[in-house]
């Protein structure tokens, strides 16, 4: 899906660059993310995936080029609205240490007028989805394990059921069992509710499972944008081939 200013794009980058001093974390990238579709960002560590997500939500501003939201340039004075329509899972969680899990989940909904019962109900539903024991809702972030915290961060992004989700390695710290189940259910939700999803992951199997559109980045630039099949059969360059080959499968039955 080549970059274009099609009005159906929820987000788009037009020749966007974000430089830190000499480093270009995102380098002249043009991409558009279609509404209702799931796109996967993959790439080497430090290739600019997180920075790209941060650009979309106005946590970072391009040093050159443009970021479009719903076809219009992102505006500082309308960030609040933009952000409320987006569920964003930071790579490191970003949970508030002084609030319980429920407090973290309810922060924005309560501000928007939800009552406590509704918040609690929604939290319980999401806890079931993420296999989080409801007892943990009363805990503080510091009392959770790494994987539990990651699931809370995901739940927080889903609380308002936003049309768009930006997920930065949302399942990276989860064990295979929980992760497997969550993958199935999330994909089902994304499809059924027509969510626009941009997800970063390092797991090729997960990437392929969620979407037929993978975007492979390296040093701030997009290397290839297409399906796993394209990557396999028409790799854009040697790097793409290497990247695919690096996936380590379980050893065969008899080693």
């Amino acid at each position, binding site marked *: 899906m080549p970059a274009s200013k099609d009005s159906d794009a929820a987000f788009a980058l037009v020749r966007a660059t974000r430089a830190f001093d000499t480093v270009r974390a995102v380098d002249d990238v043009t991409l558009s993310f279609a509404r209702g579709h799931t796109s996967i960002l993959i790439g080497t560590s430090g290739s600019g995936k997180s920075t790209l997500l941060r650009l979309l939500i106005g*946590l970072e501003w391009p040093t050159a080029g443009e970021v479009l939201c719903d076809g219009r340039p992102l505006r500082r004075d309308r960030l609040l609205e933009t*952000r409320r329509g987006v569920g964003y899972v930071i790579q490191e969680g970003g949970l508030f240490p*002084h609030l319980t899990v429920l407090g973290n989940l309810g922060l924005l909904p309560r501000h928007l007028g939800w009552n406590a019962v509704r918040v609690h109900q929604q939290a319980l539903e999401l806890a079931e989805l993420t296999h989080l024991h409801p007892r943990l809702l009363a805990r503080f972030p510091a009392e959770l394990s790494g994987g539990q915290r990651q699931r809370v961060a995901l739940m927080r992004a889903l609380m308002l059921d936003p049309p768009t989700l930006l997920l930065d390695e949302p399942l990276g710290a989860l064990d295979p069992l929980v992760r497997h189940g969550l993958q199935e259910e999330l994909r089902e939700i994304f499809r059924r509710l027509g969510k626009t999803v941009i997800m970063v992951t390092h797991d090729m199997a997960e990437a392929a499972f969620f979407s037929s559109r993978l975007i492979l980045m390296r040093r701030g630039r997009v290397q290839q944008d297409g399906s796993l099949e394209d990557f396999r059969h028409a790799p854009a360059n040697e790097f793409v081939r290497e990247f695919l080959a690096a996936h380590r499968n379980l050893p065969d039955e008899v080693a």
Partner: protein
Amino acid sequence: MKYRLAALLVCTPLALAAQTAGTPTVDRANTPTVVIGSKNFTESLVLGEIARLAARERGIDVQHKRSLGGTRILWEALRHGDIDAYPEYTGTITHELLHGVPPGAGIGALRTRLAKLGIGITDSLGFNDTYAIGMRDKEAANLHIRSIDDLARHPDLKLAFSNEFMNRADGWPGMKRVYHLPQNARGMDHALAYRALASGAIDAIDLYSTDAEIAYYHLRVLKDDRHYFPRYDAVYLYRLDLDRRAPQFVAALNSLVGTIDAGQMRAMNKAVQIGGQDPTVVAARFLGVQAGGGSIDNFWPQLGRYTLEHLALVGISLSLAIIIAVPLGIFSARHRRLGEVVVGLTGILQTVPSLALFVFMIPLFGIGAEPAIAALFLYSLLPIVRNTHAGLCGIEPSLLESAAALGLPSRVRLWRIELPLALRPILAGIKIAAVINVGTATLGALIGAGGYGQPILTGIRLDSIPLIMEGAIPAALLALVMQGMFEGIERALTPRGLRLRAQG
């Protein structure tokens, strides 16, 4: 629950203040037959207690309102019948209370004049508490100095006198003239003079002839051979209607005439002021009677009044400061440039000396609690503003970003994220301000705001450690209580989540 933090922070001191304002001032309990008053220095207090105990021995129900104030207050109280008797000095009566009495008038002359006002006077109790000149006994012995005359032979001696003594025509200027003294004296705060004398920094000071320190510091009182200093014989003044109402009491007072010499008085002053003994006990020992209970009826109510006044000063000014300074701190954290200016200005306020600040306050607020509160308020700003600023700037940036990414408006971010996370330094600032405030409020007494400063200032002026302590100890306790209170608030407000380690 949203504004729990703000509410608690602001309301606690305000509640204190409100509670205070609502309480009526000390109520007059059931009035006993006879009321004795005393001035706010040790000797007067002891003489008051002696009179009370002597009267009690004769079975008269006597109340002693101690440390009521200065001469003028006692005199007015006596004339209006608020009190029935108090200890006074002939010199004071001559110079300050009656008009047109010749300086050398005897007690007989005074009695005639006072009678016209309905006031009686006893004969001298036995000692003369006038100005005198004191030196270290050792040095005086070495130099063979016994009287003021002898000073003239030692022009190198360093003299330092209280400012009052320096300025009074009947003080140093006259003395220098009468005794032909060659030295030049310098002015020094009286509270400090004894220590300077003891340390050898100076050689002679003015003092009162029954000061407790004379014995304590081993001083020699120089003889006033030329009778330069007027007589200040101790007497009791009393309302003449007592002759009818309580003749036994008047008899008790008269029984004390001529019984106390200067040495005894000095010893009693020393026992109270330096030995820290109870004036009642000292007085009882002198009379050879039992001290008995319920002695000084006025101590607790008075302390209560000081406390209420002090709480009002601190509570109101601190509440106002919190209400203003926290937003100022927030502002200065948000706008770096302008913020520096704000913090700088609150800093400048802090450098204005309190007396100078009072000078500027009076045209705005008059005299009393208001200018004191205004000044205390201004002095409380800096620690709170500065710490609010530092606290907000110290929040982990990733948390701020996380809050922004959620789409929370900045007001909600402030209340739900930033203030709770900066709570510890903000409260530290408030605690600092509270303690400084409790301390500075003692200066409120300078412009009639009352509070613990009253006994402290009087104590400093009278060089009475017990009187200083009467204000200083409650002030220190109040500071501890306020710190404890805010510690409690901190514990209540700090979510458990912030006290936990983060783990993996």
